[in-house]
Structure formats: structure tokens, C-alpha cells
């Protein structure tokens, strides 16, 4: 393998087939550099999906569905908006969206950091399993639905039914919550929560936020432990 350089490897999606670009990213030894820039995505689906190497990928423009999906190790920065399911099932690394994201951002993700500077639409962090998600503005309805582990930080407002049927994920919301979903409740912010929130805000570039202005939400643990009184609801 050639020694890695600090040169940026460029791919123009206006002239290069997306499958070829993703295939190149999936065999990073052939790139000669860990720095990649993708231009003219024009809303294409699955841009930089399935990466599994410590690459630094910059995407210049709006992307379609499942951008940076299943990411492992790579740091992917999208200068634009992202369609449905950005960073879905991410395992590690980071995905950063400078604009807004459509529904199901970070769905089922196990690890890594997802930052969305704008809004995230409905179902942000649905079934999240360990990812850290920081949203700069608002999240839509049914966010953190069945969230199992990880953290969701919302600097703005949250839509209806936040954290419905939540397991052990921790949600921090600064703004108004339209309504809480089944079994999701507000909880006190203890020292370890201020510490965790401060760490996440710093990682996302919002270190000036006052952690005391956030409310923590989580599971009342009334739904997922079997209780005979609830048998009619199952």
C-alpha cells in the first residue's frame, strides 16, 4: 500500500457513478489518503454508506436517503441537508450535518456521534441503541421512539410523543416538548447528567449552552417490565 498522504481525494458525483465512489471508499487502501471530498451529490441516496475505515469524508451539498448509513470509524461531514435515515445503524465514528435532516436520522444506531445543526424531522433516533445524537434546533414527532440506549440532545423543541416506549436512552431537551410518549417522563438532572450533557454539547460545538437549561427525559420503566396489571395493554 502507498503511504498515506494528506492530499484530499476528490470525487465528483456529477461525473462519477455513485457505486464507483462508494466502492472506492470501501477499499480505502487504494485511496492513498484518508481525506476524501465528494462534490455534487444532488440528493443522491446512500452517499458514503457502509464505510469501515478511519476516513475523513466531506460531502459538499444535499444528500438523499441513508447517507453515511452503517458508518464505522469514519468521520463524515455533510455540508447541506440530509434525506431519510442519515447515519442509520451507525456503529462508530461521526456524522455531521450542517443543515437539516429528514425523518429517522440515526435510526437504530449503536454508536458514534451524529450532529445535525438544523432540524431533524420525525422519528429522530428511533430505536437508537447507543449512539449520541445532538440536534441544533428542533426534532419532529415520535423522536427516540423505542430508544434503547445512547443519548439524544435537542437544543430546540421536540414534537409529539417524545420517547414513546423508551428503554434506557437518555434524552436532554432545552426547549418545549409538545407531548411525551408512553412511559417517557421528565427526570432530575444529577451531577453525572450535567457532566454527560456538557461533554456532548462540547463535542458538537455548543459548549456555551448552560446545561441547567435542559430537562432530562427517560423511561418510567413501567412498560417494559411485565406487569400483570398491564396485560390488557400488551
Amino acid at each position: 500500500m502507498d503511504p498515506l498522504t494528506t492530499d484530499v481525494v476528490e470525487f465528483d458525483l456529477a461525473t462519477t457513478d455513485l457505486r464507483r465512489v462508494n466502492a472506492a471508499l470501501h477499499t480505502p487502501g487504494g485511496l492513498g489518503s484518508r481525506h476524501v471530498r465528494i462534490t455534487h451529490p444532488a440528493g443522491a441516496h446512500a452517499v458514503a454508506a457502509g464505510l469501515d475505515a478511519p476516513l475523513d469524508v466531506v460531502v459538499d451539498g444535499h444528500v438523499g436517503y441513508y447517507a453515511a448509513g452503517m458508518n464505522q470509524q469514519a468521520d463524515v461531514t455533510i455540508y447541506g441537508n440530509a434525506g431519510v435515515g442519515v447515519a442509520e445503524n451507525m456503529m462508530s465514528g461521526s456524522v455531521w450535518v450542517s443543515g437539516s435532516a429528514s425523518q429517522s436520522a440515526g435510526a437504530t444506531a449503536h454508536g458514534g456521534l451524529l450532529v445535525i445543526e438544523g432540524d431533524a424531522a420525525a422519528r429522530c433516533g428511533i430505536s437508537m441503541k447507543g449512539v449520541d445524537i445532538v440536534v441544533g434546533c428542533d426534532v419532529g414527532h415520535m423522536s427516540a421512539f423505542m430508544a434503547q440506549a445512547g443519548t439524544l440532545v435537542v437544543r430546540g423543541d421536540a414534537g409529539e410523543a417524545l420517547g414513546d416506549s423508551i428503554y434506557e436512552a437518555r434524552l436532554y431537551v432545552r426547549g418545549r416538548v409538545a407531548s411525551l410518549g408512553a412511559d417517557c417522563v421528565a427526570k432530575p438532572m444529577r451531577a453525572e447528567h450535567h457532566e454527560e450533557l456538557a461533554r456532548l454539547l462540547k463535542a458538537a460545538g455548543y459548549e456555551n449552552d448552560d446545561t441547567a437549561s435542559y430537562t432530562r427525559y427517560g423511561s418510567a420503566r413501567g412498560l417494559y417490565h411485565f406487569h400483570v396489571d398491564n396485560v390488557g395493554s400488551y
Partner: protein
Amino acid sequence: MCGIVGLHLRTPTLYPRLGELLTGMLCEMSERGADSAGVAVYGDPVWSPPGSATVSLLETGVTPAELADALEPRLSCDITVHEVGATQLVSAHCDVEVLRDAVAAALPHALVAGFGADLAVLKGVGHPRELAMAYGLPQAQGWQGVGHTRMATESAVTPAGCHPYAVGPDQCLVHNGSFANHATIRRELQRRGIAFDSENDTEVGARFVAQALADGYDIETALKHLCAEFDGFYTLVVSHRDSFAVVRDAIACKPAVIAETDDWVAIASEYRALVELPGIESAHLFEPAPERIYAWTR
């Protein structure tokens, strides 16, 4: 799946480019549905000549000349017929209802795809790109257009099953999703004497909206009623000669992106359908919120 696109032009200098822009949007959504495709174009001077009424017809079984001959004894005005793909566009200098009644009397089995003062509806079975080219869509002009690429899930792949559904004067509706209780609402509308052309769930939505508008409700109220009555998944674009509206169901799982500039408002199932619009780089982009009605007027 299905793909929907809509473009409402605010700047008259863009009117000559309506067809070109709509073609690009429609073809980009081909992957969301390649069974069939249809468009509704408002204001094309050939397809719906100014000052005339126009009725869009499918499956007439006659040639354009035979169609004109069949209508001539029933109308005391000049009749023009344009064949555009599988659609025949009949225009005459008379009231829209007069023309529509004459067509219904002369050709009772023809499928009326749309009617109005400014509206042409073209639809058919096939790949969206091939259909758009067969229509000559890139050359079309006008101030507003709506398009649909269909992946059929609940009724047959036939011209009658294609969107748009243009069942009220100068109205048009396209739908991505599926209505769960359409059969119940269809029966209620049938009891009110409303006839249907297809088994398609979207036709029920279109006839429901048309009836609400005929009852005197404005489009926002009509769509609020639709949200209250219809179960299921939907992103809808509902257009009229002077307006353009978008609504999604409460779950909002069917995608939609709206882009707005001083020159135009556009909606598509996916952002990639909007990338060729002039000024998209600086457009205000957003996803419509669930059960909120967005409407723009001319």
C-alpha cells in the same frame, strides 16, 4: 412508493420553461414508480387555449377527427382536438360544463382525465421518461404543473388507475401513500350520487375534495375534512387553477420536501427532484409538518 412533484411558478418569465422543469422533476422520480405517469399542466396555450374550455380524454376509441365530428352537432362553436400521447385534448369556446356534457353524451365510455379553463391532464401506463417525451412535456408552458410516477399497490395498472385525479373543474390531486378506509368513504360518496372511474383509493380522495369544494368550502377547510375522515398514509398535492396546496397525514412517513423562492414554489417526494430548478441553491427548503395544510395562491 410513488413519486410526486409540483411546481407553482410566480415569475411569468419562467412560464415558457414550465414543461422543461416539470419533465426534469418527473423523470428524477421515475425510480419511485415506473408503472405509469401523469401530469397536469395549467396554462399551456396549445393544450388549453386561453378563452376555451378543455376536456382531457383517454380511451375514446375514436380518432381526433372522429371526436371533433361527434361533438360538432352538439356544440355551436369551433372545436379543436389535440392528440398528446394517449390523451386527446378537446377544446371549445364554450362553458366547461357544456363541453363536458357534450363529450359525455357523444362518448359515454371515454375516460375524462380532467376538465377546466386552463388545465390539461396527460396520463398513461409506461415509464415516466418515455411518457414525458411522448407528451412533448419539455415544450409545455404554463404557470403550474403537477406530476406523479406510480408504483401501483392497491388497484390495477390502467389509465384509469393513473394519477393525477382531476375530477373537479381545474382541480387536480396526486397522492403518495395509501388510504385505508377508502372503500367506506367511496360508498358514502356513491350514496350522494357521485360516480367513480376506477377502484383506486386516490380517486376517492380527489372526489371527496372536489365535493367539499363544490359544497363551498375553501381548499384548506376541504383538506382539514380529508385529514379528519381518511385513515392511511398520504402526502397530497392538491392544485386548482389559482392555488397549490400540500398536506401530509399525522404520521408523515411518506416523504415530501418543499422549496420556495421568490420565483416559484415546488414540492417533490425527494430533494433530488428539485436540484435542477433555477435558484435552488438559495431556496427555503423544508419538510411539511404532519396534518398542517400549506397553500399558495396566484
